């Protein structure tokens, strides 16, 4: 393959150029070509990263971009398949977190690793007792306790060392984790999404601590995907996308919009000629839909996850739902699927009021669904491919007759056809789904839904976490389906995907649809400002 050599050559990451004017600073840790594969997924591919002493370095990227895996590799929890870690100029091979700790690397996990019934002090020394118990015998303050108190006062971490851990708030527990790492002599501190569990005031406090630590010469590497936070605290930012480090930038040289573009990717889908195939026939309509957080409670008394959602999808139309993750997209999809019962409002499909229909009735009336998380919601991973072919259509022809008797041989034949038509690379249809790569799993799911000729398709993040080749194939299938008259609801975090595929764009913010945009006119940057609500501070374009 002559092309591949070229691609590899052009793929060499020009990371050197990114570290402008930084030559004078001391590099404490350098990652070179880190690659990590799991069955079915490439978590990291050719990651290159340089971290300077005393800096606060943010690693940001979408969910599933490979940030956490990268941190686990640095912390010795998982060995990289390829590539090397250079710590203070020497290459290191960590076999366990203990090796990393011994080399001065500490980590605070997203889910704290603390023991509930012990005191704060005991939690901190746990596993690194040294002279702690000797101190206890002397009934006085041990050296370790004094040391810990000193650490606390240096970094402004105020925690009652004798309190039972159970009684501590989340923010306090996080402090305990940080002290724990510092007590073990961490010079480089890794924080995995530290702000995700904190309320805004606590975030401010944490940032204060982080600045204090950096000023004392500690190096901080933290993961976050909230751009405003990243810009508020980080000195430099590395963006990881689809397992690759796409860029490292200085905080002062980048805006939130540009950062978002880097995170979600800037390749526009190949602009195909969009034939106007829309008809006026509305296939799917949602009217005045409300969804309360507390199921069963009246709409007024409970927090609304979805507020007064109204939209219609016509035949041959793709309606895109844009929004920052966690603004109600997942709930909307679940409500439309019938997994969640709506509090009020109605859903109509092909003229039938399906508001009270079960998920099975909806799916059997040809409501196709591409789930946002193929492992969690889309596949039976240990089951063979042909059984996965049936999932969601197990009562329909040709997989079953009379909605009861299954036909394994017919299903296998159908699955083999699907494998062929949708280019799923697999040795045969009997391998378990988890033997396939992510892209191929996704192609199987798309094939499964498309083969059943749905009238309406809900596609949630259809190209998340799959390689570009597979992404392109998925987009192509969606375009073809649209031209054949399918009504598609496309929920995505990839702005280019939304703009490139949708006929209309709806922006969802805090559970409500706040804008309807024309994808032909909007730029990703503009769309981003609608999604964050920034747009509405200057003008009101509420729908």
């Amino acid at each position, binding site marked *: 393959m002559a092309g591949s050599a070229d691609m590899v050559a052009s793929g060499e990451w020009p990371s050197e150029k990114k570290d402008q004017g930084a030559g004078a600073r001391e590099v404490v840790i350098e990652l070179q070509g880190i690659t990590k594969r799991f069955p079915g997924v490439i978590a990291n591919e050719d990651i290159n990263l340089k971290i300077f002493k005393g800096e606060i370095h943010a690693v940001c990227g979408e969910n599933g971009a490979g940030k956490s895996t990268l941190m686990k590799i640095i912390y010795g929890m998982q060995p990289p398949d390829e590539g090397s870690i250079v710590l203070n100029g020497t290459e290191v091979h960590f076999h366990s977190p203990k090796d990393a700790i011994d080399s001065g690397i500490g980590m605070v996990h997203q889910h704290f690793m603390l023991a509930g019934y012990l005191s704060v002090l005991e939690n901190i020394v746990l596993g690194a007792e040294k002279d702690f118990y000797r101190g206890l015998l002397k009934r006085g303050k041990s050296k370790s306790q004094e040391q810990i108190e000193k650490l606390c006062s240096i970094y402004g971490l105020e925690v009652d060392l004798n309190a039972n851990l159970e009684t501590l708030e989340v923010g306090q527990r996080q402090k305990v984790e940080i002290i724990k790492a510092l007590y073990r002599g961490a010079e480089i501190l890794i924080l995995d999404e530290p702000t995700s569990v904190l309320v805004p005031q606590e975030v401010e406090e944490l940032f204060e601590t982080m600045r204090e630590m950096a000023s004392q010469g500690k190096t901080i590497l933290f993961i976050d995907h909230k751009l405003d936070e990243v810009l508020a605290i980080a000195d430099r930012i590395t963006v990881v996308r689809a397992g690759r480090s796409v860029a490292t930038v200085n905080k002062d040289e980048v805006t939130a919009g540009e950062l978002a573009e880097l995170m979600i990717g800037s390749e526009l889908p190949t602009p195909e000629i969009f034939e106007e195939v829309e008809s006026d026939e509305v296939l799917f309509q949602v009217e005045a839909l409300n969804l309360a957080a507390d199921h069963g409670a009246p709409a007024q008394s409970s927090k609304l996850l979805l507020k007064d959602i109204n939209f219609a999808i016509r035949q041959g139309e793709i309606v895109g739902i844009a929004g920052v993750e966690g603004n109600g997209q997942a709930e909307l999809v679940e409500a439309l699927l019938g997994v969640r019962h709506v509090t009020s409002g109605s859903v109509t499909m092909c003229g039938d009021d399906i508001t009270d229909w079960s998920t099975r009735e909806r799916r059997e009336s040809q409501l196709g669904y591409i789930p946002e998380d193929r492992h969690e919601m889309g596949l039976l991973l240990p089951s063979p491919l042909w059984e996965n072919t049936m999932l*969601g259509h*197990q009562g329909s022809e040709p997989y079953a007759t009379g909605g009861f008797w299954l036909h394994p041989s017919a299903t296998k034949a159908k699955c083999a056809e699907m494998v062929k038509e949708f280019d799923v690379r697999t040795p045969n249809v009997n391998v378990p789904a988890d033997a396939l790569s992510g892209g191929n799993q996704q192609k199987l799911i798309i094939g499964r839904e498309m083969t059943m000729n749905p009238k309406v398709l809900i596609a949630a993040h259809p190209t998340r976490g799959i390689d570009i080749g597979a992404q392109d194939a998925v987009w192509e299938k969606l375009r073809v389906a649209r031209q054949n008259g399918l009504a598609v609801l496309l929920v995505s975090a990839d702005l280019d995907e939304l703009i490139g595929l949708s006929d209309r764009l709806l922006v969802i913010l805090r559970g409500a649809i706040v804008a309807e945009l024309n994808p032909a006119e909007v730029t990703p940057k503009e769309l981003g400002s609608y999604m964050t609500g920034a747009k509405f501070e200057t003008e009101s374009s509420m729908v």
Partner: protein
Amino acid sequence: MSDPNQNSSMSNFWFRSWRPSTDGNGTGTSLTSPSQVGWALLTPVATIVIAVFLAGIILLAIGSNPITAAQSMWSSGLRQESIIDILNRATPLYLAAVAVAIGFRMNIFNIGVEGQYILAALIAAKVGAEINIWAPLHVLVIVLTAMAVGMAWVAVPAILKVTRGVHEVISTIMMNAIGVSFVAAILLQRWDEPTASLNTKTKDIPPSGRMPDLNEIVELVSRDIDRVQLPSGQIIETSKLWGFLMVAIIVGLIYHYFINRTRPGFDIRAGGVNPLAAEVAGVDPNRTVLTAMLMSGAVAGLVGLPEILGRDYFYGLQFTQQLGFSGIAVALVGQNHAGGIALAALLFGVLDTTGPILDADGHAPEEIVTIIKGTMIFTAIIVYAVARRKRLAEQARLASKVLSAKERPDTPIAENPA
């Protein structure tokens, strides 16, 4: 930067150059590894070999000769009476294991088979004794009563689970305690039939409600069964192959076809493998939990009937208990597969039946059989887990071989926005 379209078409080319050759069923493919079949056979064999090996070590450790112990188990096990005993023992074990396996398929742990079958056996025996109708119908009424009682007893934990989220392990254990105590209370207080013997028992089921034995079939394939003359002058056969064996076989077939070949069976399996994916695929979680638990209870209701309808014709103090718990072990060793459970039930039957010979011949205490069974469960779990992982690794390797001509995702080159 190369055009992604060109890239994917290139990979299409590579894919086409490979294309699996599918036969009429779409199953056979050129890249199917022969060892895939090997794994399926290897795992149960490996389990037994390792368990036997470990049992030998245990026998050596307590100072017995494992070879001679095996020889006496072997020769005693091959006797006609032993084979009948083994089958009679395996029948209720099989039913109990199928009951447990139905739940396991959906990740539901029905520990309550014990209480369900004991209660079902008592009530079915009582109902059977109180009526006297045309024979096949009589047996059918008893069988259906037992199934209904089993379902009713599991319905409580099932409903608690779907409406209140009470974990079935807790509630079925409670129901066991209640059921077994209830049986003891009602048997002693109300249903005890005064007889010459000291046995506390229900009234006898009339002959029309008894299950015919399968001795003629045994005699067809083997020699005649030994007969003895009673002091009354009546000639009886010394052992009987219980007719309920046929019911167990039918239940096994229904279980196999239901789980593998019907939509509700698929729903149960899908719910067990990935509840979330099943739910968005239209599987109603509550309804499926109810279905699986009620079916499990119905089968559990049958567990006590082989001996009641085939040997005792009443419920009394000699009634075999603990079958529900043994069923869990059998289902584990048989990996919830209808055929695998049958083999496991036979294996447990062999051990239970031939175990006492160890004591009688002075090789080892009978309890060694319990140790062997325990070892076997552990071995089975470990061997299956290892095999599953190896198989996945192998298939992932195969899949990546297909991808060896994989498109190298071209490197996205982001401009530094600065």
